[in-house]
């Protein structure tokens, strides 16, 4: 039962992907680090404003998507282009101990910061060693 549901989800996802792949997506550069309280993801997405950013979670997959908008005068010819796409996309699979309901996201100067806290019961506890 759950299996069939998963498959249909995947199909829907790939159809969407096809539409977006008309323009090849840029894989944003990321830093990922973990401390006691959770995991932090930082992604460079220059040109993406808050309203063109989409962070979503589908079961255990975290997806980051964004569209860069750059002010361009009309009739501009490209002389040089390192960046050929305005679409950023990257996904990560999460593990169970992360609390996806309490993710915090911030965007500043094209840098996306995601704080994914660990569930309370998964935070490391120091175990006292009894002596005596």
């Amino acid at each position, binding site marked *: 039962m759950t299996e069939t549901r998963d498959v249909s989800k995947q199909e829907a996802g790939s159809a969407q992907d096809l539409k977006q792949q008309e323009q090849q997506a840029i894989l944003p*550069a990321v830093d990922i680090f973990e401390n006691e309280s959770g995991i932090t993801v930082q992604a460079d997405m220059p040109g993406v404003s808050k309203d063109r950013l989409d962070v979503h979670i589908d079961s255990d997959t975290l997806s980051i998507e964004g569209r860069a908008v750059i002010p*361009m005068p009309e009739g501009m*010819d490209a002389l040089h282009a390192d960046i050929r796409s305005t679409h950023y996309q990257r996904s990560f699979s999460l593990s169970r101990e992360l609390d996806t309901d309490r993710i915090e996201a911030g965007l500043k100067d094209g840098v996306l910061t995601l704080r994914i806290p660990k569930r309370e019961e998964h935070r490391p506890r120091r175990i006292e060693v009894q002596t005596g």
Partner: protein
Amino acid sequence: MFETLNTSGPGLLDEIRRMEREMNQLFGGSPWPNSIRAVARGSYPPINIGSTPEQVDVYLFAAGLNPETLDISIQQNLLTVAGERKLQVEAGADYYRKERYEGGFRRVVTLPEDVDPEQVEAAYRDGVLHVTIKRRESTRPRQIEIK
């Protein structure tokens, strides 16, 4: 022993070079000729340059910079942008990935000959530095009326 090395060696190398050329044609080649000051693909920050009859627009995709630390200068038609990107490093954290660029950078862009170094504007928004350089009035195409 040496004979086999000599005969098979260059043949194999030729094959590799041919494959390299084909790969370059497929994926590498940019449709524009490379500038002598061009840097390797993937250098930070990536740059796009666009042109219209009125102006030249340079875009630097440099997220997370303090615009006050940027040094932008223009000499004739050479635009130089230098700066340093400092990342906040969390002490005591375990890093799984560190892909984001950190450190100093300097990029020099050769602009078309007719730009006016007196008319340059720069803006930093959402991590993109946008430099606009107007072209000289006299070199812009003009419509000539027939009397």
